[in-house]
């Protein structure tokens, strides 16, 4: 599914979200459902900022100018609910989906009958998961913005909710969901926002939090029974916990889920096998969008078939082939089995003494995928290999082999060309549209692998030459990953004999089950902190490591090189290399000894502590040979064979020349050893599984030294070498994908993140109101300040400080190279005049905007900011007076850097002459900071839209220490 476009209408999603929108807050009883018996609308309307109270049946919401105001209004409503008892106790009415033969009777006589109940959670088990959406109802058309990948079912739901034609709904999918995003919550938010926007005729944004779902999130439940003898029989009954799947708004307004009655849209509930006796039934109404339900259904079928095969002692692949009368499916299964070297289960569970037990699992899915507007059959097959440590319960998925096919090849072939530029940037972006975030859950599938796998439509092992990050993409990618959960669960069963009946699977469950085997083996596992979605993309990555990169051996410790080994010239060169590489920036704790480690780096995967790189033999790198050092720098492998987290930018350092690498080693080894044992980095599962990084490296790391581009000048090449290698600019300034891999191609240096700060784009995508010139870049990198742009602050300040060690020529080369990335930037002296004119225009625009502003926040600005930032007022002052109108951060799409600097100041500029800015975290409250940030945007970037989510960002960044 192409997430950048509206699935049915094929319109690009460059329709900007509305400005001046309102914020809605839906009010619900604890479990989501209940009859509304009373509320005080007047009390809510009296609250500041409240625009309206929306009531539709049992749906109740407050719309206000600001989210906090909506929340205050919601509290003032004092809504009263009555929870109908009967809905909780009445067993669901079952509807027969399909049936033939006499399954019940056969099962009653069945000898090797297997019964099990599988559960599939629909929302993220993370307590802080949430989803947001914006809806706008204008001129009979509904526009909805949200992060989603599969809008087809949502469109049906919204049409039913508002009783409008599905064609009048435009869903604009943001393929880059924010952190903590949950697809299930986003659908709820979309329905809430749509109802509110429809009621008041203005754009409304709202957020739904997983916490509103209560203690036990919505789940699908599948009761499955099957037997092989005397005849094959299979029954499956699907039920859902109340409120699962369907947006609450639909139930609350008394409308039925649109697909409840539609026949033939249960894409996976009927197993794709020719069974002699079959009974398939589902609760009426099930109300879960078919695309979401399909994942649970495949999990249930494929886990159960595996259980059946194990019980009967048959090869699970053979069982599928025996039951399948579908040539495409059989062909796919055969090819995948062959490529994976399938020879049946490994039966790791038979060896009770083994610490690490190995297992293999197979799963298959063939469903009708509705997502592209026209139904298409898809086939997917997975073989997963796992290693389970029976002492810790840790699960390592070491390899997967995946095949995927889809009918309707025509639509697939044209998808990339009709709407998407055929380039790496887009492909990379798309790779992250399915299971985009490590903490994602819901309908998000582990899409990292699927496009690559679907590329040639055939069974396809993840051979090392497959560059997943650059292969193109296609429709139907999500379906390729349907069997993932079952394949892994089956492999775990093969390894341990423990059948997991509900994701997410966790080390704790396995450990517990192994300790209490067999009694605990059939119990439904408890919810744990990590998610299957986390595992699945890594699954695929890990496949590479088993076949390509085995465990790395330790390199024997050596005595530290003697003091006279390296010449002073080499050590001096190494000092400059270290400066260019900013080693000390990360390897020095605040106030700590240089290079002794201990700085905490916040990453999306957890906190990584930097290590001691002084030559202390015990706690530092004193006993590292050059070979060990070079391997760490180029391949990210510790001397002892452990893999280092890519927070250490070995991906960039691999480009460093041999001579520089040796000089760096000489310099580090010549330093004074410091005994310092920084805290151990302890990430949560699965990120603590360092072997998985082998797969990561295969995808995102090329161990190649820098090769000069002979068509470019020596200065350009020097700049590129410094910027891409030692300088590791892209480590912060390139966006990263869901797995923390830097995106290359067109995404290269288009902006990223560092320690809670935005690292702005260095390319033509820069938001700077006046384009950066080579001179500006040089000034900035050399002094930390460029008059036409601003000062280096946050994590960039120590980088500039470190660059001060480098000769001027090197810094100029970096500036020259970076300037070349932005072809629009004026590099000739003749264009200086044009730049000066632009500066004047930007300042004049801001001055005009200033005339429109007054009031409390204006006074706040005058008191707190103007003395140092208003160049035309006050007395001549120590330090720069950075122009805010020219500041890139105020023109950025994100308010993060402005908020960071307002809250935490710029207390450590790279150069004292720039001046110091105090942080206002202790003197301004969140509301004042938010108001000030909005004011600054309005005054200094009047051509840019008002920022969204400023209040949330302020609250979040206030807690950060930077």
């Amino acid at each position, binding site marked *: 599914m192409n997430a950048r476009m509206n699935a049915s209408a094929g319109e690009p999603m460059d329709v900007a979200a509305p400005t001046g929108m309102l914020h809605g807050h839906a009010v619900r009883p604890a479990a989501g459902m209940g009859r509304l018996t009373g509320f005080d609308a007047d009390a809510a309307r009296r609250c500041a900022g409240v625009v309206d109270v929306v009531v539709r049946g049992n749906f109740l919401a407050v719309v206000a100018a600001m989210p906090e105001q909506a929340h205050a209004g919601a509290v003032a409503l004092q809504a009263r609910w009555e929870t109908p008892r009967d809905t909780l106790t009445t067993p669901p009415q079952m509807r027969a989906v399909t049936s033939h033969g006499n399954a019940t009777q056969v099962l009653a006589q069945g000898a090797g009958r297997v019964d099990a109940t599988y559960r599939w959670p629909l929302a993220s088990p993370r307590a802080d998961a949430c989803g947001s959406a914006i809806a706008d109802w204008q001129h009979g058309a509904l526009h909805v913005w949200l992060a989603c990948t599969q809008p087809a079912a949502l469109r049906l739901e919204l049409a039913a909710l508002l009783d409008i034609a599905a064609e009048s709904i435009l869903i604009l999918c943001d393929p880059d969901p924010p952190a903590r995003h949950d697809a299930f919550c986003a659908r709820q938010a979309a329905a809430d926002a749509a109802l509110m926007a429809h009621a008041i005729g203005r754009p409304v944004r709202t957020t739904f939090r997983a916490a509103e779902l209560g203690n036990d999130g919505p789940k699908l439940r599948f009761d499955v029974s099957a037997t092989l003898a005397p005849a094959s029989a299979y029954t499956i009954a699907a039920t859902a916990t109340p409120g699962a799947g369907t947006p609450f708004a639909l139930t609350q307004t008394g409308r039925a889920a649109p697909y409840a009655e539609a026949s033939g849209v249960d894409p996976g509930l009927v197993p794709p096998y020719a069974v002699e006796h079959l009974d398939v039934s589902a609760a009426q109404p099930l109300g879960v969008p078919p695309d979401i339900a399909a994942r649970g259904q495949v999990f249930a079928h494929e886990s159960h078939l595996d259980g059946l095969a194990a019980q009967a002692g048959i090869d699970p692949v053979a069982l599928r082939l025996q039951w399948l009368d579908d040539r495409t499916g059989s062909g796919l299964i055969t090819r995948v089995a062959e490529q994976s070297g399938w020879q049946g289960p490994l039966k790791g569970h038979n060896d009770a003494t083994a610490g690490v037990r190995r297992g293999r699992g197979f799963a298959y899915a063939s469903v009708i995928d509705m997502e592209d507007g026209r139904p298409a059959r898809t086939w997917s097959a997975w073989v997963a290999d796992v290693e389970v440590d029976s002492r810790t319960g840790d699960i390592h998925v070491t390899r997967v082999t995946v095949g995927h096919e889809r009918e309707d090849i025509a639509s697939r072939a044209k998808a990339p060309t009709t709407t998407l530029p055929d380039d790496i940037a887009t492909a990379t972006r798309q790779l992250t549209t399915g299971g985009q975030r490590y903490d994602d859950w819901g309908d998000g599938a582990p899409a990292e692998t699927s496009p690559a796998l679907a590329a040639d439509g055939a069974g396809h092992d993840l051979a090392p030459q497959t560059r997943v990050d650059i292969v193109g993409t296609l429709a139907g990618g999500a379906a390729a990953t349907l069997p993932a959960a079952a394949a892994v669960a089956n492999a775990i069963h093969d390894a341990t004999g423990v059948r997991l009946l509900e994701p997410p699977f966790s080390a704790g469950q396995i450990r517990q089950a192994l300790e209490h085997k067999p009694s605990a083996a059939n119990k439904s596992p408890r919810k744990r902190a990590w998610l299957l979605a986390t595992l699945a993309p890594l699954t695929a990555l890990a496949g590479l490591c088993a076949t390509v990169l085995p465990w790395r051996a330790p390199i024997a410790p050596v005595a530290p090189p003697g003091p006279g080994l390296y010449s002073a010239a080499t050590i001096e060169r190494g000092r400059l290399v270290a400066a260019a590489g900013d080693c000390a920036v990360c390897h020095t704790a605040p*106030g700590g000894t240089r290079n002794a480690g201990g700085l905490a780096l916040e990453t999306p995967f957890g906190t990584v502590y930097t290590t001691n790189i002084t030559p202390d033999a015990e706690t530092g790198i004193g006993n590292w040979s050059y070979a060990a050092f070079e391997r760490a720098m180029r391949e990210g492998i510790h001397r002892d064979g452990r893999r280092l987290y890519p927070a250490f930018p070995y991906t960039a350092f691999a480009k460093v020349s041999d001579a520089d690498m040796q000089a760096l080693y000489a310099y580090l080894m010549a330093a004074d050893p410091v005994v310092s044992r920084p805290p151990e980095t302890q990430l949560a599962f699965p990120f603590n599984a360092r072997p998985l990084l082998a797969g990561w490296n295969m995808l995102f790391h090329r161990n190649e030294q820098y090769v000069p581009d002979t068509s470019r000048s020596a200065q350009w090449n020097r700049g590129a070498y410094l910027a891409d290698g030692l300088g590791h600019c892209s480590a912060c300034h390139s966006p990263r994908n869901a797995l923390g891999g830097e995106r290359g191609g067109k995404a290269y240096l288009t902006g990223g993140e560092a320690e809670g700060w935005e690292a702005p784009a260095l390319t033509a995508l820069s938001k700077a109101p006046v384009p950066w010139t080579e001179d500006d870049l040089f000034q900035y990198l050399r002094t930390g300040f460029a008059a036409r742009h601003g000062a280096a602050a946050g994590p960039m300040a120590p980088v500039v400080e470190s660059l001060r060690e480098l000769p001027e020529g090197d810094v100029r080369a970096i500036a020259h190279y970076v300037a070349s990335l932005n072809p629009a930037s004026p590099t000739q002296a003749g264009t200086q005049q044009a730049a000066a004119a632009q500066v004047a225009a930007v300042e004049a625009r801001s001055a005009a905007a200033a005339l429109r502003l007054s009031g409390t926040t204006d006074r706040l600005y005058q*008191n*707190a900011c*103007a*003395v*140092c930032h208003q160049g*035309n*007022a*006050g*007395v*001549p*002052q*120590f*330090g720069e007076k950075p122009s805010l109108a020219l500041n890139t951060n105020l023109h950025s799409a994100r308010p993060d850097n402005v908020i960071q600097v307002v809250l935490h100041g710029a*207390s450590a500029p790279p150069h*004292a002459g720039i*001046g*110091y*800015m*105090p942080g*206002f975290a202790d*003197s301004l409250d969140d509301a004042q900071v938010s108001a000030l940030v909005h004011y600054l945007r309005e005054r200094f970037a009047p051509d840019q839209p008002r920022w969204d989510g400023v209040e949330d960002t302020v609250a979040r960044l206030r807690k950060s220490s930077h």
Partner: protein
Amino acid sequence: MATPRPIVLRVNRDTQEVCVDPATPLLYVLRNDLACNGPKYGCGLGQCGACTVLIDGLAARSCIVPASAAVGRAVTTLEGLGTRAAPDPVQQAFIEEQAAQCGYCLNGMIMSAKALLAANPDPSETEIREALRFNLCRCGTHVEILRAVQRAAVLQREAHAHAEIEAIR
């Protein structure tokens, strides 16, 4: 907080060594370690100007400038302008105009005026208002302060002329 270490400051033409955390605000070092109590603690956020000193002749809000920033630069506080017997022209003008009520802002007014006159020896009233905009006074001698700065400009020009004549002799 980093550990204190000796840093060398040049304050009012004297070289002084103090042992402090280099991130300590210059104001604290001046008042607590060097007994220069002319600069006052006001808001602590560089907003009110009561702590103003000159660093290399430029006005600086010493409550937000760390001591380390002054290393290698000339710091001038109110004490460095003139003495009771021989006040600086700006001090003399403030005395003559009686431009003080509570006096807490006065250090900042005088030091800022000093920085202003160094850059613009003959400012108009509008320029003075614009220059002192960010020095807050809450008790009400604004008019006297304006007059004092105007008089200071005259006195300073006279003093310079006098000094030049002396030099020619």
